[in-house]
């Protein structure tokens, strides 16, 4: 579903990704682990098309199409979703309104009918409840005044509503207490399906206790230095990244 080959990318002229090869088939959840500064978040931004992240080499194919040629919204319409590490605040923009506009934009592109306010509310209320959120959150401005946990839940809510084909979760566990983590993980697990791929970017093994990955990749200094099964995460937890770093 997602195929990354020889991907190199630079930020402000400095190479951060130094040749990444990675394939995530539909139905699988892959985890990317690595210490701070290894390029994890950069990978997420490059895949979702953020400005300022310059791809210098390599290709990314998503559902058979060249992902890198697309604008950010085209990637979203194609079914790619990035749950931000630091969700952005949009003062004055109502959360429900934002989400409906995003959903309708995607539905429109897929040739589906747009939802009116009533239909949308019906859809979204169920999802809100499942995520242990209150309806009141829909009335507030997007992420404005949200706690860290609320922001992360809001990201998962968007994911649940937009139903993307592929989800990238960028450090979704950071800043969450154990209860919030469980709720978020439940939300993510509910979206696991044979048609959907996921890439879970995390610093710690903790999240992977709740979202058990099919594969774990270790990113160090812009390269994947090791790949393995779920056990790899445990091993890292035990030994830390130091050994790998020394080996690299």
């Amino acid at each position: 579903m997602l195929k990354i080959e020889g991907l190199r990318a630079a930020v402000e002229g400095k190479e951060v990704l130094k040749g990444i090869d990675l394939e995530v088939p539909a139905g699988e959840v892959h985890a990317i682990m690595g210490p701070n500064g290894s390029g994890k978040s950069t990978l997420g931004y490059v895949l979702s098309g953020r400005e300022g992240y310059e791809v210098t080499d390599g290709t990314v194919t998503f559902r058979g199409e060249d992902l890198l040629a697309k604008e950010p919204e085209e990637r979203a319409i194609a079914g790619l979703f990035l749950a931000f590490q630091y969700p952005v605040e949009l003062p004055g923009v109502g959360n429900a309104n934002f989400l409906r506009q995003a959903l309708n934009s995607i539905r429109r592109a897929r040739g589906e009918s747009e939802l009116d306010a009533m239909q949308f509310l019906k859809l979204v209320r169920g999802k809100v409840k499942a995520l242990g959120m209150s309806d009141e959150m829909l009335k507030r401005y997007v992420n404005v005044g949200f706690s860290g946990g609320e922001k992360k839940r809001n990201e998962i809510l968007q994911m649940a509503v937009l139903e993307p084909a592929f989800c990238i979760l960028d450090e979704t566990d950071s800043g969450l207490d154990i209860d919030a983590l469980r709720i978020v993980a439940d939300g993510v697990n509910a979206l696991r399906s044979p048609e959907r791929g996921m890439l879970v970017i995390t610093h710690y093994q903790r999240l992977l206790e709740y979202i058990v990955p099919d594969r774990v990749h270790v990113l160090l200094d812009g390269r994947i230095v090791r790949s393995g099964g779920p056990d790899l995460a445990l091993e890292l937890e035990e030994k830390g990244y130091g050994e790998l770093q020394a080996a690299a």
Partner: protein
Amino acid sequence: MPAVAETLETVRDVTQGTYKWGFETEIEQEVIPKGLDEDVVRLISAKKQEPEWLLEWRLKAFRAWQSMTEPTWAAVKYPPIDYQDAHYYAAPKAKADGPKSLEEVDPELLRTYEKLGIPLKEQERLAGVAVDAVFDSVSVATTFKDKLAEVGVIFCSFSEAVREHPELVKRWLGTVVPYGDNFFAALNSAVFSDGSFVYIPKGVRCPMELSTYFRINAKNTGQFERTLIVAEEGSYVSYLEGCTAPMRDENQLHAAVVELIALDEATIKYSTVQNWYPGDAEGKGGIYNFVTKRGACRGRKSKISWTQVETGSAITWKYPSCILQGEGSVGEFYSVAITNNFQQADTGTKMIHLGPNTRSTIVSKGISAGHGQNTYRGLVRIMPRAKNARNFTQCDSLLIGDQCGAHTVPYIESRNPTAKVEHEATTSRIAEDQLFYCRSRGLTEEEAVGLIVNGFAREVLKELPMEFAVEAQKLLAISLEGSVG
């Protein structure tokens, strides 16, 4: 930056021709010859069959105007205006003293307003809104007059008010904006041709929104209307004006005067959605909108609230103000002003605190795009008697693209130690991370900008009457088309 530039490109193509109110109505017009002198003033007054006192007032204004010079302090640039090169009166040909009822109104005019989204037939109207339709120099129709009369509310054209309620007009006209107040107000006082008149009697809460829809149609004419609203003790009225004009290469002058008077515990809410033709993408054509709007909170605990959404006009020069005389009176000013392409706006307010315990709030949101220049200019003045006066001002500017400008010029003058004045201003652009966040959720860049700008203006838009809030939101997005980015 690149993303913005790119969007600028993409949307520039769409820009041209987005002003969908730019059509012209073909109708037989009566237009007096170009030029302005005392005879023209007399002619306008004669056409309106005005009483002698009003003619005298106009002439005094005209003489004052002749001795005045055009103000140059605003941050706007335009070539000199030849005041002799315009018609000062243009009206659709009609029966001698105007139509008595809608049935007599030229169907072409009714169609014009329908096209503008303002059907004048009452059964088709939004039930809660009465409309006075002003076409060039005259009012062509006023709806729901009878229904309003039942509760004693007078809502009619200014000309009709002069005929039917001369005592009210004579008592209040020029009491808030004197004929010699400023260059454009003096010009208006000399040649004003029509406008709306509203009188809300004591204790009456006006049962519906009142609105005036201004339309400039004729070539080479200026529009000089005058609006006067008097709210007696304990009354309430919400009033809205809208304006559009055909797309023309020439610049046309619109110099209006609005006077509001609120007596004890009266409230006037005055909303404007200003959408005069802004000129084309190269800055050709467009309306010069030089307007004097002022309200006097004469009575204790009276309140005047201005809300404006300024999206049109080539040049806007406009400072809806409040004179807070009555003890505990309240003034508010909520403004969104967009300048795109080559539009220039110099707009803001004056809050003059005279009485004790007076309060004022100013919220201004300026959005500059393209080559637009947007200036907030405001005065908060606390006079020695204004014990415990309060003002809060929030003034935010948003820049879209690197060829525009945003300027903030507040004046704060306090002569009473118990008064408290707070002013905050910020200038920024749409953050890249906000744009990216929206786009990564599937919105196009243009949609994302529209969404963020509407969010930016939310505080002001929520002050608009429901019926118009949605329209105003759309207008914001449309105004940014083509330069968005």
